């Protein structure tokens, strides 16, 4: 068959992108040292923090905890690779009017996690929030405190046994054992398999896929899974539904690390799409301390790239003008190291800023509902149009 011949030809090109298993990314020297702790170690660290507070009290001193700041102002970027890490800037939570609340929240979260670890159980962020709604008031407060605690313990969030509820989805040519059950992702209908937050329960990954198709949004995921794209090409389809959670990033990283296959990303052609691409590839600022556990390096930007709008003759009426916020975000991204290390990506961003318009993946539907799966994607893959 000519088509399978073509497919073979195409797969040759993709196989060349395959990377042998790499070592874990090393944090730069001036970055905060983070390690994966065992359950017992995490429990012990929490007790150490509590005992330290009590010993301060014993000397009639204000109890206080130094918490690494998790924001852009404490971000360290690896100049060579562009990967994002946390620095050593700390904020003190103490018995003062301005920080006592945050101290109480942090210790209350530590208390909850300590209990969880003692029981050997997992819990979702939502459940933890409900352990003291009065104190937390909003879930974002306890969510933030969980990550603050993790980084205070110099470990990753997974070590706290707190997980987010499942957000990402996976479908295609892959099977694995999850909590003792064999999961075959090629038999998941059209909705796909939810990517479990309990990533430590995933084992025995088996796949004949040649690449991962990473899509930004659920809509594109649905459209491609309905078209059974993984039957036409040996691939795995993954989405984090917008800004990805830890589990999706870990799952992607796990697959790529074990197989060495490349990832082709399909994002919106806007600054926010590029930022999501950054999260998968270089890490995020708020979770900079987890970067070595989360990023996937063998990543290629397939679409929807600003240049596609011209190349694929996407009708102008689906273009959306860039907002002021888009323009600002775009200019900021151009300043960042990781993008400077990806000159082809930054060229696309410059093109977008110059044209003053953006477009969503769904804009492809303007050329027909099957345009993406039947025309756009095959053309892209066959012409090796990735950067």
């Amino acid at each position, binding site marked *: 068959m000519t088509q399978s011949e073509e497919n073979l030809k195409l797969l040759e090109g993709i196989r060349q992108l395959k990377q042998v298993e790499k070592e874990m990314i090393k944090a730069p020297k001036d970055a905060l040292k983070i390690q994966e702790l065992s359950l017992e170690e995490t429990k012990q660290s929490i007790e150490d923090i509590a005992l330290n507070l009590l010993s301060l009290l014993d000397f009639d001193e204000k109890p206080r905890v130094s918490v690494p700041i998790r924001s852009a102002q404490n971000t360290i970027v690896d100049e060579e690779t562009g990967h994002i890490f946390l620095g050593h800037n700390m904020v003190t939570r103490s018995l003062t009017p301005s920080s006592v609340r945050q101290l109480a929240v942090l210790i209350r979260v530590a208390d909850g996690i*300590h209990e969880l670890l003692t029981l050997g159980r997992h819990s979702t962020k939502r459940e933890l929030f409900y352990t003291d709604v009065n104190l937390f008031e909003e879930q974002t407060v306890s969510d933030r405190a969980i990550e603050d605690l993790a980084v205070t313990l110099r470990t990753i969030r997974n070590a706290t046994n707190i997980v987010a509820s499942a957000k990402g989805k996976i479908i295609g040519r892959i099977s694995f054992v999850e909590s003792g059950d064999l999961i075959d992702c090629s038999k998941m209908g059209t909705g796909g398999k939810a990517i479990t937050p309990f990533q430590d329960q995933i084992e025995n990954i088996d796949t004949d896929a040649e690449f991962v198709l990473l899509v930004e949004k659920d809509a594109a995921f649905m459209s491609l899974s309905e078209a059974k794209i993984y039957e036409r090409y040996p691939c795995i389809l993954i989405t984090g539904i917008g800004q990805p959670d830890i589990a999706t990033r870990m799952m992607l990283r796990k697959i790529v690390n074990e197989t060495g296959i490349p990832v082709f990303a399909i994002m919106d052609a806007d600054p926010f799409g590029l930022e999501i691409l950054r999260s998968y590839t270089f890490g995020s600022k708020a979770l900079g301390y987890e970067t070595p556990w989360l990023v996937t390096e063998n990543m290629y930007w397939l679409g929807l790239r600003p240049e596609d709008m011209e190349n694929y003759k996407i009708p102008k009426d689906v273009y959306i003008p860039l907002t002021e916020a888009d323009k600002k975000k775009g200019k900021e991204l151009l300043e960042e190291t990781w993008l400077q290390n990806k000159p082809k990506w930054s060229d696309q961003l410059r093109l977008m800023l110059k044209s003053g318009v953006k477009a969503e993946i769904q804009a492809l539907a303007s050329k027909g509902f099957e345009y993406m799966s039947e025309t756009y994607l095959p053309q892209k893959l066959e012409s090796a149009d990735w950067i």
Partner: protein
Amino acid sequence: MTSNKVETLSAAQWFKENSEIAGFDNPGKSTFTSVRELVENSLDACDEDIQMLQMRGEEIVYPNINIVIQPVSHELIRKKILANLDDTGSGSGLDGIEEFETDHDPTEKNYVIEVEDNGPGIHHEFVSLVFGTVFTGTKYGIKQGRGRFGMGAKMAMIHAQRTTGLDTEIWSATREEAEESYFRIRIDLKSNSPIYTAQRIIPDKPWHGLRMRLYFGGNLVWAKQRILEYFRQIALVTPYVNFRLVIGDEKYLFRRVTDEIPPLPTETKSHPHGIDIEELKEMVKRYPKKYVFKSEKKEGYPTLAEFLMLDFQGIGEGTAKKFLRYKVEIDPNMSLNELNDVHIFKLSQAMSSYEDFPAPDSSCLSILPHESLEKAASFLLEPEYINSVTGNIISIKGHPVHITTSVAWGGKIPTGVALYRFANRIPLLFKERSDVCYKALEEANIKRYIDINVHGVTVMVSVVSTRIPYQDAAKDFIADYDELRETIKLSMQKAFRGVKTYISRKQAEKKKEQELEKLIDHADRLATSLAKITKGIPMSESEINQKLMKIIEREYA
């Protein structure tokens, strides 16, 4: 120019030509003015009574002023006219306002006003002196007073006469005698003299005070809110007076809220800056050939220096001689007798421009202590906080001008800013935007200090002087002198700052309280969690809690 060629203006003509100035230019304003003139007349009488009682060392009688305003019908006016014709001295007449109440028709534009005080009353022999002619009163000294023309009540009488034709009725009794005098009086507008149409003495009616009743044409619909506002405001600056007000079928009581009587105004000599040539000539003319100066009998006229020392405030021998010799360049020992018009002109010019006279004496002013005003304002306006700035004295044309600013904030005061203006303890209700106080308020920029959209502010400015610098003869508003505006503005800003300090202190206290609460609350949770993580070793939850509380108390309580 000889004086007999000058035609004397009759009272009627004067009134006609100056009704606007006098506040009788339309029916509404006339109604308002009639009320205020009678009330202020009574207040002046009561104040003088208090002054006299204080001098004698007797117990003070706190003023009670009762005001009744009722519409009356044409029919009643007609009956009254007929009754007056019959009653020429000993008849009974109509007595008591109550009788009118039954037959009034609301469309009528005629009213009866009766104002009664518990002042000293007027002995019947002196009534003609008091209510006699329109233009009376020769003042030698200067004194702070409420009266706008020294004839307020008389203007109201003339207005009543001109609109209903009815005479004014006066009942009066003094402390000294156990009898009541009754007069019916009208002013002969041509001869400018009183005509008594009835008068009698009613024995065995022991009270004291004065009751006046006028029938006049007016418009109460227009005037009513202004009359109420007048009483609301005057109650603030005369808090030692009870005002009982009846308008139609509504009754209002503005209760006395303080026992404290402000020092009442005293008469003082003129300041040289406040005298014009005519006044100077009058003063010079008064001296006879013989006079007594410092207990020495001297023959002949005083010298110029002696004249200044005798007739003006704050001038001693040194000042007088220095001023005359170097400023006027006249021999201080020149006899007053030798003064010609050229001398007087030179003297007058020099007096108004010489800057080394002492500032005008303000001790003669009656200044309501700001504590009394604050007390009255707390009672009447029910604010949360009042701050006053007082004691600013400037001089304008030889007259001391004293300024007190009180700012009431929050509580029941409606949001926004209200300005109350007082001139010699009388509220000014008209032409606010032209008043110096309004301009000062604009310049003071209250928004820099207080958020008036959250809590309301009432700014009360009391200006007291031996001569309030009104813009014009209508005396509705105070003129915009730069120095006065600046002084009022600064006193407002100082008062606003006081309010601001109060607000921020209150907020700071509230914040501190909230912070303490927050600390204690969270310390409690902290103790629970820490004890749980460490399983109560080395400290129990209550021990941890105690330690935390100790630190909070040490650092924040």
